[in-house]
């Protein structure tokens, strides 16, 4: 595979992960590292559980007719 097509695949894969929410935990870790290095991050499992609670129980409707 050439470097160009490898780069394209990497970007497509990244987009798919972002779209599905697969990379949320990594983005959360990134955020803490750059903005709040003193804060102990949640574990992956705790983060997933608390994200679901926020999205479905606090944010109101996120799906339409």
């Amino acid at each position, binding site marked *: 595979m050439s470097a160009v097509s490898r780069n394209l695949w990497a970007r497509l894969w990244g*987009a*798919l*992960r*972002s*779209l*599905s*929410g*697969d990379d*949320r*935990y990594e*983005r*959360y870790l*990134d*955020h*803490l590292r750059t*903005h709040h290095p003193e804060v102990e991050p949640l*574990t*992956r*499992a705790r*983060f*997933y*559980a608390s*994200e*679901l*609670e*926020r*999205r*479905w*129980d606090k*944010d*109101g*409707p*996120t*799906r*339409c*007719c």
Partner: protein
Amino acid sequence: MSSKRIRHWLTWGTIAVVGAAAFGGIALNRGESVNAAWLVVAAACVYLLAYRFYSGWIAARVLALDATRATPAECLENGRDFMPTHRWIVFGHHFAAIAGAGPLVGPTLAAQFGFLPGMLWLLVGAVLGGCVQDMLVMFCSIRRNGRGIGQMAYDELSSVGGTAALVATLTIMIILIAVLALVVVKAMAHSPWSTFTVFATIPIAILVGIYLRVLRPGRVLEGTAIGVVLLLLAVVAGGWVDTSPSLRGWFDLDAHALAWFVMGYGLVAAVLPVWLLLAPRDYLSTFVKLGVVVLLALAVCVLAPEIKMPPITRFIDGTGPIFSGKLFPFLFITLACGAISGFHALVASGTTPKLLTRETDLRLVGYGSMALESSVGVLALIAACVLDPGVYFAINVGAGVVGADAATATATITSWGFPVTAGQMQHLAHSMGEQTLFARTGGAPSLAVGMASIFGSAFGEHLLAMWYHFAIMFEAVFILTVLDAGTRVGRFIVQEAFGKVSASFGRTSWYPSVVLSSLVTVAGWGYFLYIGVIDPNGGINILWPLFGIANQLLAAIALAVVTAILVKSGRRKYAWVSGLPLAWLVTVTTVASLQKIFSSDPKLGFFAAAHDLASQLAAGVLAPERALVAPKLIFNQQLDGWLTAFFLALVWVVVLDMARSCARHLAGPGAAATRETPYQRTQLA
């Protein structure tokens, strides 16, 4: 002119010419069938031109979007809901959130007027109304730290307008869940294959839920991939169940039993923790939904099927058998979500604006994703219109209108000028793996037959039954997601209301309160679902207009809030951008509501229908099984009449509140000013 400018005008000039030629092709094609490719090309050109020029003009002149202004995602970044995200990713999230069953069912039903009225309103309504609404609501929210539309109604109008918006949201949610549940129940009735497949989605979702919470926390792609494979297997396995004499009896259920099952399911889903059922189901439905939309678009573009429905049918005079009422206003009420959807205002404010990196991105995310959603409506319309019109009516018209047996039904439909034979229907049902396709109201079976015939000619005729049940599964999966999520949202609103009476009921985790408020919500939509099931005319003909009126009402509320903000933020001369669609929606909902309330035609007016049925019951001319359900239907027609009057009152309360708020602002400078978050320069590169 620079060469870049010349190229720009050449490109857009070509798109305009191609679009005009496609419309010319449709208009001049008299008497012969039109190819779907013309519709696709015409629609694509309209969306592209509107996006390039109208949304560009709104972004630059009306809103003066400022790429240097820091967005809430940047100012309030928390690594969770506030998070600067690439605009195409936000576009995908937002599209997945707004895409639902509405733009699939609405155009399918509206095809009774022919393909042209539906097609034109999907295009015009979206580019001048729906896309504008979504974009403007998003703009107002992004300038107010991602506030929701309900909160903005409180802030910009008054507590009266705000309360009206909240009440409207809850009522609409209940009607919406009922109508969608009815669509699924009607699709599963006496179809063991569909029933098995839809039932199987529940344990599959639970399995994925456990995988994502316990086995591999948060690995969404892995979990979804496993789930999607299992869903496809469930479609195949449904076929085995259907041919197994011992198993099929278990899944051969009537609409009654299924309605009770769906209510029980809704109750359980609202009480269970989200990770177990709701969240994994949502991951699966999003994937299946996006996949099918892409597949359908590809199939329509590559195969270019012939449109068999005439451009306009005689039913524009109001005598339509699928739903009653003339082209104006009922075309607009029926298409609802594909052109303008009030529900989008709930997502476009709140969730999505918290992700936008730059203000200028909201042109793509707000306007663009609604244009894409509307094009899904065009695809659904095409899928309905590639069927023989006779077949289309045989599937979508209730037995109460055309008669219960095949001979009478086909004779009636043929007498309307749409020839169809019992043998043709029998053959079609057989090839789709169903016992019968007569009177399968609700829109889902007809869409599935349309999609199966399109996919079948692309990927092999022998798979027709498989495609049909795949399409049913696809609709059911995300309808059940809306049912779960909507019941949950309803539960929280009810709990909040209960909390005002007793503090312990307000605690969202107190079990008795959870169960009671879920029961209240499920009872709300369950009632309308149950009535829809026992109605011999199919139920959808009553419930869908009610839903359409409610949805357009919510859009009117959103546009009223936006118009008030435009006036109060010094954009008075551009207030027509949201003011015109608002005026149109208020006109449409008012005329439709008044007809539904006051029409003396029992097919159209709710009270007239109640009166008509009551006199038939009193005269003893009803068949025994009809006389049995008649009192319930009479009560329901009256209830629907009052509900429509309530909707009408709500929309006028909000519009008058908007007028009052604007007038106060115009009377004296500084009075009733709008509250934008102050400008802050972006630090992002």
